[in-house]
């Protein structure tokens, strides 16, 4: 700690702090343009100049100067004011003054400073910039005439997003921020540069000319897309979400967002939202009043109860309170047939982790990954399913110098990070490689075996998974397997990352267990600072597991329910916030189930393909329209807040469950989410002692920063078998989409509007396929047509298609396997 005085105030701060940070702590305001909390000090704008007693004779930039013992800092004086004013005058020489039409007007740092320092008139005159604006892309608009060259956009893109779109080009007065070859922007479109820009040089195009910042009502809530649980601050005007505001003060994401979080909000405003209940009459879905719809639901459910039973399929985008009530409702309906997210993909948590570690959640929190020495990411898709957690990994690699190991079947963002080592395996064989790594640890005596159960059995099982054998199978070299295992064992702090979701249902239990084995053997499991992360694809995937939206003992899970429904052994299906027809594996089976089920109720916000088959459709509310809590993939319980009103007569899922319950004579009524949460705290052990009102801006992490694991038992899991086919199809997430809901949001659609089939360059060349060609994929007697995309990510013989698009009907081919043998016809 260091003692210093700022404007006469005594303060003690960390040794690593700069004068600016110390001043912030002391509550002294120093103006800045180029400083950002999450970026490294830069010192470009010279607005933060201050006087330091010990360095008399010149002014010192506060944001780059580290504090020293006994420093005496003066932040305001006549001289400082004069110098700062001159700096602003220089900036304004060629800055175009178009505040009335600039969307930043009202929250522009330059505008505020110009006002504070009374920089009018300007003593200097010069030519104003007249550069062309970049309005090519639909999401980020760049107007370099307004730029003050603070470099924040270039730095955030490099340091945090690790994409590196921008750089300074030219010199002197002509210096500007530009992309490679000064072309239009073509990047991830995460909009981090938008959030960083202190002026109106980089702006969100969907918000162009929509409103002024001071008109917007700001509502802090949690993003409804992935399990990362980023805080999004909705900018609401006239009951419409107009934009997502920058907010780095609260939440887990430090103000970082991905393309979905920042630009994917528009589906909540969609005109296609369901506004009234629909009931099937004479074969057509017609709008009816709630009473009629509820009568039909009650009658159908009662019939099912006395008939062959009822199944409930839920999505993982409901709040904890809603999931809890749904479970109660299922209990009231007398059924244990309750499941979520296809019933397969989360088994890494509920089976893999539970068998080995005795827990059903990730063991660490996100920020600690920044200080990990070695990070193993299983599947490169991790950045694409959880981009903002991915940014934490970027920072670990770039700032902490972490070694990143990527075990995956295709290349991706992570593989391009500096020093990243990719173990590129054939599809579906990740478990084999993990097994081989575990074997190396045991063979070389690197493994932590104290208090670990099941070592002998594991050793026996792993005899078949020597690095050489696995290298033959998977194509990952034996040396790199050994090397990766050694690095992981040697690391002081390590993190193992893995994502789960609907397109990753193959080997889910095995992957979870194999990753847990590795974490136990390297000692990472349960160690402070290290973590094992299995992150859900949807906003409340972890909540669904915590609250037990799982089949009861002896009851049917999602797959069995669908099978039973198809065979006519189930009388009713209740599908909540899920579109099984578009997103579950094996479309034919789902289709048969939905058609054969005598009574189908779908509760959703859109008339999804599944809802079109329903007997009753109940209109529900989106995340922006309800109150409650989500639990993110690091177990952080965060408040979801209502920003806008629900369109039409739609209702929140919570009140729909209550209505159905009371219509059936039940007692499920609560005064609101708070009351339900109190009930959750009573019944769910992990949530015990947590009060709804106490969930503050940072949320509450149940189990604490480092989750105590209750067991250390390694279990042997069998690896996959390679698919024997010259061309293999794999599916998964793309960066721009999440689930199927993002295909109704304008932002993500602006970047990836249509389904595609991705080829590596070698394959494309040898097959004679060019970008945009229509290609037919054949497998198992069915075929689908997709437009080709040629990239450098895919290894030979592997093609990739994202699962998000209902129109692609990819699940006609995808039946839950890790890789699908396909035939290609042009």
């Amino acid at each position, binding site marked *: 700690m260091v003692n210093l005085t700022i404007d006469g105030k005594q303060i003690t701060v960390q040794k690593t702090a700069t004068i600016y940070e110390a001043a912030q702590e002391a509550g002294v305001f120093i103006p800045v343009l180029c400083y950002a909390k999450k970026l490294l000090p830069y010192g470009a704008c010279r607005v933060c100049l201050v006087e330091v007693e010990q360095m008399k004779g010149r002014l010192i930039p506060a944001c780059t100067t580290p504090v020293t013992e006994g420093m005496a800092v003066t932040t305001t004086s006549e001289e400082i004011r004069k110098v700062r004013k001159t700096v602003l005058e220089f900036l304004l020489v060629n800055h175009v003054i178009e*505040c*009335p*039409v600039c969307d930043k*007007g009202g929250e522009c740092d330059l505008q505020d400073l110009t006002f504070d320092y009374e920089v009018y008139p300007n003593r200097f005159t010069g030519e104003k910039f007249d550069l062309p604006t970049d*309005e090519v892309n639909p999401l980020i608009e760049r107007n370099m005439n307004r730029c003050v060259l603070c470099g924040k956009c270039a730095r955030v893109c490099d340091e945090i997003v690790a994409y590196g779109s921008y750089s300074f080009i030219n010199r002197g007065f002509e210096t500007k921020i530009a992309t490679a070859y000064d072309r239009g922007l073509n990047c991830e479109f995460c909009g981090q540069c938008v959030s960083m820009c202190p002026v109106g040089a980089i702006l969100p195009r969907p918000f*162009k*000319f*929509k*409103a*002024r910042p*001071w*008109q917007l009502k700001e509502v802090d809530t949690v993003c409804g897309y992935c399990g990362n649980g980023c805080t999004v601050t909705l900018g609401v005007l006239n009951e419409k979400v107009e934009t997502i505001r920058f907010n780095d003060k609260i939440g887990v994401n430090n103000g970082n967002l991905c393309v979905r979080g920042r630009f994917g909000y528009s589906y909540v405003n969609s005109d296609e939202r369901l506004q009234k209940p629909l009931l099937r009459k004479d074969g057509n879905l017609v709008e009816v009043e709630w009473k009629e719809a509820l009568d039909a639901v009650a009658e159908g459910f009662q019939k099912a109860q006395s008939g062959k039973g009822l199944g409930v399929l839920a999505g993982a985008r409901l709040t904890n309170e809603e999931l809890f009530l749904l479970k109660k409702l299922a209990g009231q309906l007398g059924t244990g047939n309750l499941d979520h997210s296809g019933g397969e993909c989360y088994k890494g948590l509920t089976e893999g982790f539970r068998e080995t570690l005795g827990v059903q959640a990730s063991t660490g929190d996100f920020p600690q990954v920044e200080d990990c020495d070695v990070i193993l990411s299983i599947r490169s898709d991790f950045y694409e399913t959880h981009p903002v957690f991915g940014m934490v990994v970027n920072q670990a690699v770039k700032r902490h110098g972490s070694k990143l190991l990527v075990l995956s079947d295709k290349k991706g963002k992570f593989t391009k990070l500096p020093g990243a080592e990719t173990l590129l395996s054939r599809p579906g064989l990740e478990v084999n490689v993990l097994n081989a790594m575990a074997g190396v640890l045991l063979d070389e005596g690197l493994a932590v075996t104290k208090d670990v159960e099941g070592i002998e059995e594991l050793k026996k099982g792993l005899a078949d998974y020597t690095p050489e054998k696995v290298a033959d199978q998977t194509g990952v070299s034996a040396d790199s397997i050994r090397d990766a295992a050694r690095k992981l064992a040697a690391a002081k702090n390590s993190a193992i990352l893995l994502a789960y979701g609907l397109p990753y249902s193959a080997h889910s239990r095995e992957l979870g267990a194999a990753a847990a084995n590795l974490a136990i053997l390297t000692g990472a499991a349960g160690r402070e600072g290290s973590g094992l992360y299995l992150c859900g694809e949807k906003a409340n995937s972890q909540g669904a597991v915590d609250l037990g939206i799982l089949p009861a003992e002896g009851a049917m899970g999602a797959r069995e329910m669908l099978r039973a429904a198809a065979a006519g052994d189930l009388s009713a299906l209740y599908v909540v916030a899920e579109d099984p027809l578009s997103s579950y594996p094996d479309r034919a089976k789902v289709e048969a189930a939905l058609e054969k089920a005598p009574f189908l109720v779908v509760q959703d916000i859109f008339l999804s393909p599944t809802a079109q088959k329903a007997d009753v459709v109940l209109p529900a509310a989106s995340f922006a329209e309800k109150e409650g809590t989500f639990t993110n993939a690091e177990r952080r319980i965060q408040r979801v807040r209502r920003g806008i009103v629900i369109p039409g007569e739609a209702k929140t899922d919570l009140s729909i469950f209550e209505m159905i319950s009371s219509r059936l004579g039940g007692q499920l009524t609560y005064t609101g989410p708070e009351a339900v949460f109190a009930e959750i705290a009573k019944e769910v052990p992990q949530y015990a002692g947590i009060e709804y009102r106490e969930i503050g801006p940072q949320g509450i992490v149940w189990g604490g920063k480092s989750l105590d694991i209750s067991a250390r038992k390694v279990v042997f899991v069998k690896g996959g078998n390679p698919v024997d086919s010259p061309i293999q199809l794999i599916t998964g997430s793309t960066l721009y989409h999440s689930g199927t809901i993002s295909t109704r949001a304008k932002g993500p659609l602006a970047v990836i509007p249509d389904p595609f089939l991705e080829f590596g360059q070698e394959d494309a060349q040898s097959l004679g396929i060019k970008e945009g060609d229509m290609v037919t994929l054949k497998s198992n007697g069915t075929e689908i047509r997709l437009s080709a995309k040629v990239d450098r990510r895919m290894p030979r013989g592997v093609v990739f298609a994202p699962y998000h698009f209902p129109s692609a009907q990819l699940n006609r081919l995808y039946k839950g396997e890790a890789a699908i043998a396909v035939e290609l016809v042009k």
Partner: protein
Amino acid sequence: MFKEFLKGLSITFKHMLPGHSTTVQYPKERLEISDRFRGLHRLVPAHDREKCVACYLCPTVCPAKCITVESAENAKGEKYPRVYKIDMLRCIFCGYCVEACPVEALEMTGDFELANYNREDFEFAKERLLR
């Protein structure tokens, strides 16, 4: 003292003589209105559109909250007011809107005869304000 009385009263009586009245026979006779008079607003036209750039300063400053602006992007990519209307029933003619306007797109005219029969007719949309 008597002298002062006479002096004062002479002014009073002078005003009683014909041609010295300050009252005019409105509406037959009209006074010339000062340039600074704050009457009905006028949106100043530019070449092919209104000068207004929809910066929202007038609705923000308006103490009576009688101005509604909705901005949009026109074909040229410029910001323009898709909707601009003033509710004259609420307007207090303070002139802050004119003062706030950064592009001198709004003026106040001498027009003060704003009586009407319907409430709706007091809503002055862009078309009526552009003169």
